[in-house]
């Protein structure tokens, strides 16, 4: 996937919430909860990470970090009401919320990046938000 690294605010893309994808995700999370099955299945708390699979080329923001040194520091999901359900159509867009650096314990520079994905409904209201903290470990001396 080619990615847009020039801007700190990406374009939006459609994210259809599908029961099959929810079922696949529920299986991967070892959940047999009935709420994750069927036509009106609710999304699991961390499901919206799958939204990036719908991003057209050039829309998702590039982190620009070296993959072999990439760590995921933390992740937060916020729902402004009940979580989305199968059949919902959301519009996702990414923005860079924070960028900072720290000295690594063994020297070198660790780089941090917080990418927020906003998920809006057809009215443009944000219904959910995903905040990802990425870390690039210092290069070994």
């Amino acid at each position, binding site marked *: 996937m080619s990615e847009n690294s020039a801007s700190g605010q990406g374009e939006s893309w459609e994210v259809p919430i599908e029961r099959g994808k929810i079922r696949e995700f529920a299986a991967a999370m070892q959940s047999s909860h009935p709420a994750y099955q069927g036509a009106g299945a609710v999304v699991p708390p961390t499901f919206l990470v799958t939204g990036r699979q719908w991003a057209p080329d050039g829309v998702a923001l590039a982190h620009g970090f070296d993959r072999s040194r990439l760590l*995921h520091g933390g992740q937060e999901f916020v729902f402004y009401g009940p979580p989305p359900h199968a059949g919902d159509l959301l519009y996702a867009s990414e923005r860079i919320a924070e960028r900072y650096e720290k000295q690594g314990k063994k020297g070198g520079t660790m780089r941090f990046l917080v990418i927020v994905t906003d998920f809006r409904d057809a009215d443009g209201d944000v219904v959910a938000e995903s905040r990802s903290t990425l870390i690039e470990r210092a290069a070994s001396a």
Partner: protein
Amino acid sequence: MTDETARMENTSRVEVGDAPAPREFGPVTTSMFVQYSGASGDLNPVHYDHGFATKAGYPSVFAQGMLLAALLSTFATDWLGPDQVRRFSVRFLDQLWPGDTLTCRGVVTHVAEGPEGRSATITLAGERPDGTVAISATAEFLLRE
């Protein structure tokens, strides 16, 4: 905490200090990491390609942090209900290796009235067999009346 069914139907009596029985997932396998890669779309090979992982300085492949988050969320939504979640926030602290189990624990730390009704703040942790906390989380769930 004795009647699982009653708790699933009504969480209005949840109080600070409530904690469900811990749940153990695994032992985790590379197959589980591959399954999560496909489901999530995170194709970082460090989680399923042994050569890539060792070249990057790790002793072997290891679980995606987001897989641990997903297992912790399974524990949490079995407890308080998938439709009730309003915030789920995780910190990745250490790796989980193939063959490790993940023991999930949780406790209610705060109960408050919010715009949608009463909600509980919980803290969660996922531990390796040696007791190391691999992942910690805080979450908010709306309580069912």
